[in-house]
């Protein structure tokens, strides 16, 4: 399984969980879940690209 697929799956599950935990209405929960999911994916990609110039070893 690719790293990206693992990241996306993780973000969706965590986003959905916190959306449902923090909001009462379905619409609000969906909105919060979506924002969290997208934030996690975008920020992770951003951090990954920022780390790209650093050596692995």
């Amino acid at each position, binding site marked *: 399984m690719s790293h990206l697929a*693992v990241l996306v799956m993780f973000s969706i599950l965590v986003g959905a969980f916190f959306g449902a935990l923090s*909001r*009462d209405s379905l619409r609000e*929960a969906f909105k919060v879940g979506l924002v969290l999911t997208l934030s996690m994916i975008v920020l992770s990609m951003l951090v990954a690209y920022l780390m790209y110039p650093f050596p692995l070893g």
Partner: protein
Amino acid sequence: MEIELARDPQEPPQQPEEAHASVWTLLIPCVLAWLVPGAGHFYLGRRRRAIFFFVIVLVMLTLGLWMDGRTYVYDRGHPLTYLATFANVGLGPLDLIGRRMTYDRLVWRLPANRGRAELVGKLREKIRSPANEYGTTYLMTACLMNILLILDTFDVAKGRKEGVLQPDAAP
């Protein structure tokens, strides 16, 4: 003359009053939430939400185990392993599956001498798997989610959240 007692718009909205719950009305849902993810919410009437939480935690746990994730055992030499093991135990009986799959037996402590080499060998086997780090993260997240669910159940039972003991409209 009738005086209208309207709420001052500047006044902050009132928090829902905390129900005067007995120890048992708080303890039972929390224990249920620890035993089965979402069971505390189910007991408190938030049934759809409970099923949703159960599915999320179960999917997270299954993916973690599928990706060769490992549970933690506490080691006196590494104090942070106490926290990790505590988090694992927060998943309740489902944690036993993770332990069984990681160490082939139920163990929570890394022995000081006898049996240590065998256990470390099992851990190394897991760590060699390319997806181990991801799997362990998934597994640990499932455990932490259940701990959050226990705390949320406590809040609902205490009356700190709206919709207590009423069917909810959320997922």
